[in-house]
Structures are given as C-alpha cells and as structure tokens.
C-alpha cells in the first residue's frame, strides 16, 4: 500500500510537470467546471465488473476502447489506427482472425506508453473464468489474443466470425492498464478496490475522487493525446435521487449541465423545458418494449412442468388468430405518447434499428383496429360467453399479464387491459419488483425466465449495431427450463427449426446486405408467428444546459463518448 501511494504520488508529480510544460496549449481546462447528474449513481469505475450503464458511462470519461460507435451507429477507430477489414488486410480472408493496430504515441494518463501488452492483458482479464467478468459475451469464440509487436494485437477466433468487432469495441470493453491491474486477475478482481475505483486510462479525464454510489470527481488528463482538449478542467459526476429531480436540476434550477436517462412523464418534462434553461435531446437505439407471449402452458396444476415444453402448449395463445387479435387491439401510438413522449414511437418489429435491418412487412399493427380484432376472433370460433369473455371448448380467454414495477409500465398495462376487454379478453395484471423479475433467483416463481404467466412485458435491446447474438435468443436451445436452471433467453419458448436454420446461416454469412436480409426474415418470422408483440420503440432522453456545446447524444455507445469535445458556449 505504501509503495503504491508513493508511486501514485510520483505519477502525479510527473503529470503536474508535464501539464506545466504543456503550457503553450493553454487551452485545456479553459471552461472550468462541468456538472453531470446521473440519477442512478456510479458504483464502480471498472466496466468489466459494473452494474450497468451508469458505471460504464462514468468510466467512459477515463477509459477508452479500440474502436467505438458514433451517434449514427458507424464504427470509428478510437485507440486503434483504423478499423481492420478484409480489404485492408486487418481481417483474415477466412474470417478467423482480426489484427488491431494502436495509434502511434499513445500514453496513459500517468505518462507511460500504451502497448499491445495492455490490450492482450485486458482480453485475458475478462476471459478469466473466475473473475466474474460481465462483458464475457463480447469475447465469445476467441481462441487466443497475442501481441505481434508493440502496437499490433492479433485476435484469433475458434471459428469464422463474419462480425469480428465484438471484443474491445464500444464503451463496455475499454482497455485497462496492465501495470495497474496485473494483480487483479481472476479471484482477485473484486478485491482491487483502489484499482476499480480509480482506473488509469487514456481518456480526456482522470479520477480525482470516487465516492461509490454517490459522486465521482474528475480532472482533465494532462497527457491526453488531443492538445487543447478537454475544454473542461473538472467534472463532477453526481448520482442519486430520481429522474424527475435530475431533469429539474438541469432544466429548471440550472445547477447541472447534463442529465441522463430522463424517464419522466412527457408532460412534466415539457413543462420543465419551458423554463428555458436547458434542452431535451433524444435518440433512438434498438430498445423495444414488447409483450412476450407464453407459448407453453403456465397452469399451476402442472407443478414443475409449468411453462416448459414438457408441460404442453398454451391452451389458447398457440392459436395464431388470438395472438393477431391481441396485437391489433393495441393502440401503440397512444402507448408511446402517454408513456414515453419524445422517447417513444410505435413499432411492429423486434429489430427497430439500424435502418438496414428494419422490416416493413409487419406494419399492419401500427393502426389499432378493434373491429377487425373482434372479427378475427369470431371467425376463429372464440364466442363471447355469458360474462362477455370469449371462450371456445370450455377455454376462456383469460390472461395473466406481468411486468416489472415501474409507473410507465403500469400505465401501459392498464391501457392494454382496457383494449383487450373491448375484444372480450379478460386480463389480470401483476407487477414484480425489477430486482426480482429480472433476477435469476432459482427459488423465486416471479422471474421473467420462469414466466409463470401468459404475457409478460419488458424492454430488450442489443449492444452496438450487430444483431446476431440478439437474434440467436429465440432458437430452441435457448428455451429456459429446469434442465438448464432456467438460464436461457427464449422467453416465449418459441421453437421453429426453420428459425434455427436461419440463425446458423446468419453466423456464417459475411456480406452486410445478406446479413440484413436474413435478420429481416427472422424478425418477420417472429412477428408473424406472434411469439412477441412489439409495442414501443424506446429512445434515450437526456437534457443538457443551453450553455453546454458539443453534446451528440449517442445510443450506440456511451453518452459520454465525445465528452472531450464538450465545451461552454461563450
């Protein structure tokens, strides 16, 4: 510990000296203090052990990846010289390896050079079996990572990877400094508090003080590669409270410059924005609020076989007419307007972006049509019983509809229940605390994997711009069941050999156009067979003070991705 603090002190002295030398630039830090508020406070500054976007964004001011996505979803080289492709020789012809080359002259904030050894170390750090690394999925199918020289790293895959850019790309997988983290590998990862709270990075800022679940204070990195940047000398990254008060502190009181993820009632947000101190910005990524349809029987009488393939098909949701009617009865535009305002738009696809992957084959559902929904049910033989609820062969259309506890979700539930009652479907609503619903506790009956209900609602999305892993969620082998400890992402228990075949084909197709065609086909298959009923394409909403310039809201990467370019309007 003693030695470490001496080293840190020495590093700080060097940093001070070099900042004095860099006096000719003078521009760095000219705009003083920047205040950012995240209503979910940052818990840790190591994205590999993080608890979500708040931590990843907080670390994005310090740590940087090889490449990242810009606000339009295009990949840009960041620490790497350029994006490796088959054309420039960076990706092998047979798609089994990729070679990244670091920019020349990169240094860490302590002044030491960034080398390929750091990149190799970071990959091995995450791929360590015992470390509990959260970004492990990004390192799937990697056979080895080796340094070719001081600046080049070759990643070899165990099979051809048509999309080789998953590892070390994007804010979730930045490069760590080997020197700092070398004793923090595997089982030691969680014990390295000082390292996890104050990583040394290449980014525009350095951590000065970190109070877990509260505040991070940063100062400008004097060794930042782009002279004159960042414009701000100090950043306070405050956490805590709720979305509405975060919005208020930017839009009404002007205490903060940037507020993140403002999931606030749209009318309230508009009122706050009317104060004229800040601007609300929104952008759309891949998040879709959807209804998952349980295709297996959740009847409690089945005991352990509840909601599994062995338990048999669902008594009425396996009827395509019922699923189509349920979908048609929903007014998605109203749901988007009521619940999300600027941050939501109606969608009929589970893949709503990037544009190249978006299908137009399912747009029937964009317009609510209760009469048609009724007609479909009539035609399928579901007739209203004495209580007004439709039934056929003794089966009543009675639905248990569950979701996580969240004001917007409960509003949506109430509206959907109303519409479904108009087509003779009875709905019982249930909401479960998010930590339980999305938690994987084997003993809890209320997890979204167990799906002991007929319909469940939540949002899912994919990182970056490649949907391959995401589309792979709905193959037969991903169905959660007691056999795989309910681990699996195929909540509807959808199983279609044709879909599985397409997923395999996608994994071996390289050309972007062909991949897009396959993804569209898979999306249409899921939509037309009604395994999911998409509702709202959800965007991100943030707000920034009118005096803050340079904000380019990015949903494909961290919102802090270009914080080096932010400045204060004169």
């Amino acid at each position, binding site marked *: 510990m003693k030695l470490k603090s001496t080293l840190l002190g020495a590093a700080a002295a060097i940093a001070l000296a070099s900042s004095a030398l860099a006096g000719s630039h003078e521009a760095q830090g000219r705009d003083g203090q920047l205040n950012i508020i995240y209503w979910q406070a940052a818990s840790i500054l190591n994205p590999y052990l993080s*608890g979500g976007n708040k931590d990843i964004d907080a670390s994005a001011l310090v740590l940087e990846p090889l490449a990242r996505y810009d606000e339009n979803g295009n990949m840009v080289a960041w620490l790497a010289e350029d994006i490796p492709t088959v054309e420039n020789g960076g990706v092998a012809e047979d798609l089994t390896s990729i070679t990244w080359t670091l920019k020349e002259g990169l240094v860490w904030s302590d002044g030491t050079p960034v080398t390929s050894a750091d990149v190799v170390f970071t990959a091995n750090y995450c791929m360590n079996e015992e470390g509990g690394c959260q970004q492990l999925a990004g390192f799937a199918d990697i056979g080895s990572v080796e340094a070719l020289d001081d600046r080049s790293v070759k990643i070899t895959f165990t099979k051809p990877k048509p999309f080789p850019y998953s590892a070390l790309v994007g804010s979730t997988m930045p490069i760590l400094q080997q020197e700092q983290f070398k004793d923090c590998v595997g089982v030691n990862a969680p014990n390295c508090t000082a390292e996890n709270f104050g990583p040394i990075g290449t980014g525009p800022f350095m951590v000065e003080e970190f109070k877990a679940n509260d*505040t991070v204070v940063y100062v400008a990195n004097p060794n930042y590669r782009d002279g004159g940047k960042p414009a701000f000398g100090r950043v306070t990254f*405050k956490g805590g409270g709720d979305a509405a*008060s975060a919005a208020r502190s930017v839009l009404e009181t002007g205490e903060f410059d940037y507020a993140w993820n403002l999931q606030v009632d749209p009318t309230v947000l508009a009122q706050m924005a009317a104060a004229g101190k800040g601007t609300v910005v929104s952008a759309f990524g891949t998040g879709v609020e959807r209804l998952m349809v349980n295709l297996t029987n959740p009847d409690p009488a089945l005991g352990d076989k509840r909601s599994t393939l062995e338990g048999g098909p669902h008594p009425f949701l396996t009827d395509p007419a019922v699923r189509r009617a349920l979908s048609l009865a929903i007014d998605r535009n109203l749901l988007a307007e009521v619940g999300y305002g600027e941050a939501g738009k109606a969608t009929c696809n589970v893949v709503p972006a990037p544009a190249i992957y978006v299908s137009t084959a399912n747009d029937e559902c964009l317009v609510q049509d209760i009469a048609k929904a009724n007609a479909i049910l009539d035609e399928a033989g579901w007739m209203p019983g004495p209580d007004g609820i439709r039934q056929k062969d003794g089966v009543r259309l009675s639905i248990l509809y569950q979701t996580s506890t969240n004001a917007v979700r409960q509003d949506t539930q109430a509206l959907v229940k109303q519409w479904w009652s108009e087509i003779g479907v009875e709905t019982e609503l249930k909401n479960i605390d998010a930590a339980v619903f*999305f938690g994987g506790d084997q003993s809890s009956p209320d997890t979204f994997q167990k799906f002991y209900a007929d319909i469940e609602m939540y949002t899912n999305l994919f990182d970056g711009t490649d949907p391959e892993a995401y589309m792979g969620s709905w193959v037969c082998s991903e169905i959660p069941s007691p056999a795989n400890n309910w681990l699996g992402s195929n909540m509807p228990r959808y199983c279609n050999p044709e879909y599985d075949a397409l997923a395999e084909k996608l994994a071996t197709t390289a050309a972007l156009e062909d991949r897009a065609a396959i993804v569209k086909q898979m999306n249409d298959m899921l939509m037309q067979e009604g395994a999911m009923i998409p509702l709202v394409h959800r965007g991100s909403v943030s707000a920034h003070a009118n005096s803050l310039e340079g904000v380019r809201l990015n949903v494909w990467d961290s919102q802090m991705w270009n914080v080096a370019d932010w400045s204060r309007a004169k």
Partner: protein
Amino acid sequence: MLNYTLRRLMFSVPVLLFISFIIFLILDLAPSDPTGNLPLTIPPEVREKIRTSLGLDAPMWVRYLLWCKQFFINEPLNIWDQWRGTCSFNCEDRLRVVSYVTRSPVVDLIVERMPQTLWVVGMSYVVGILIAIPIGVISAYKQYSVFDQAGTFISMVGFSVPPFFSGVLVIVIFSVQLGWFPSIYDTTLEVVDWETFKMQVKQMIMPVMVLALQTTAQISRFMRASMLDNLNQDYVRTARAKGLKESVVLLVHVLRNSLIPVVTVIALGVPAVFGGAIITEQVFKVNGIGQLLIIGIQGGDAPLVQTLTFIFAVMIVFANLIADILYGILDPRIRYD
C-alpha cells in the same frame, strides 16, 4: 447499577447473534438477485458465472459463517491495524465484508457516508428537539389556547405530510422559484473557510427543516402530554402554596419531572439518526446511510444490507440499554438491582 449494566451487556451478545442470523435468513430467502439489475444484454450463462464469482453458489450456512468471520474478526482487526498502522495476522490476505455491487469493503462505504448523514439527520434531530420542547411546555401550560391549537396543527402536519411531498415542495419553492438554496446536496464540499461554511449551511437548510418537522411533531406531543400529567400533581400545588415564583414552579419542578420520559424517547430515537433518512436523503441527494441502504436493497447487495441492518440492530440494543440507565439516573426511585 454496574451489575445490572454488565448483565444486560452480556445478555445482548446472544441476542445480537440471533438477530444477525435472522437478518441473514431473511435476505437469503428474499427473491432478490445481485445480477438482477444488470443490462439484459448480459447472457444468462455470464450471470451465472458472476454469481459464482460472488460466492453465491456456497450453501447458506457457509456464507453466514463467512460473514460472521469477516464481520466479527476481520473487520475489528482491520480497524485496529488502521489505527495503529500495523499489519497483524497477515493483513494482506484478510478478507473483509465486500459489497457485491461496488466490490469494495462495506465498512469503508459506511464510514464515507457517516459525515453527511450525521450532519443532516443529526442536525435535524437536534433542531427538532430544540423546537419541540418549548412548544410542548407552552402548549401544556396554556392548554387549549391559540398557541396550543397551532402547535397541535403543526404536529399533525408533521405526522401526516410525508417527506417525499414536503421535500419536493420546498425544492420547488426555495430552489426553483426563489433560487435561494441548491436542490442537490454536494457531498464533496469540504468546509475550510467562511464561504464553504455558508454553502454548507445553505445546502443543509432544506433537508434539515423537512426532517426536523417530523421530529418536532413527535417530541412536542410527548412533551405536552408529560407536562400535563405533572401539572395536576399535588407537589405542584404544594410548590405554589409555598409561594414559589410561577417560572420556578414550571421550569424547575414540573419541567424536570416531565423530561424523564421524554429523555428516554429521545435516547431511543438516536439509532434512527445513524440509520439516515431513506426518503429525505433521496429527495435532496444527500447520499448518506439511508440512500446506501436503499441502493443495497434494490441491487440485491446482501453483504451491504446485512452489515448495515446489523449495525442498526447493535445501536438499537445499546440505545435501549442507555435509555434504561438514564431513566434510573434521572429518577432515583427506579432501581434495577
């Protein structure tokens, strides 16, 4: 008295051990999961690995004993080492109670948050008591007067208006409309000179007042009731008959006797100060102990919640003991031996 105190202290050891086990059991049975709040893009197999890396695959009793060892042996050793600057019993390998979410020692997190909690919640307790006692005394002395009615009204408001309403209300009035006070508490502010002291006072006023309203409501009611009990006693009539001044009768004879039960109530309320104010801290972003606890609960952070609630339990047990002893000191008629 000493005998009684020692007996009580000894008895509290099994009680606290039992409490710690019950807390652990409740947390273990609760369907909460530390990976529950992670982004859905993290696949289930990776979640399982994270759970294993947190040690969640071990049987329940193993995890409980591990926590006991970390909390009762390793943490005190660590405090000793930090205090003496030594390294006893190979301190490098000593495992402390570590939070699942921040991956840092829980005790350090608690220590980091103590200042703002003590400043804000503690100050509100003191302010509340200072306001409540005069209100209680005057209300009782002038029972059914306008002052008494107003005091009753204020305490009803204090009892019935929740801080998530009154907190936001004062923010809207004093931060948004008037712009007098900041709506967000700055925990990094260090008081070094007059300017920073003024800023500290400014940012404390709103949360302290919102919390003090609740304390005032409670204590002033106790004070009033206790004063009323005493005012009709024979000894008060005797004192007046002796020709003592009314102020002496009220403030020396009646007040002293009336304070006995109130002091116990105040002592029992002290642990709540250390527990923080979950809602008010959240509203003003004070980020003290209360906010730490609620984040721990939401994030399924069992070691954090376990340690915090256990520390609360210890404080409640000791506050009870102190209240009992104080009672004996203030009222010589009461003897425990």
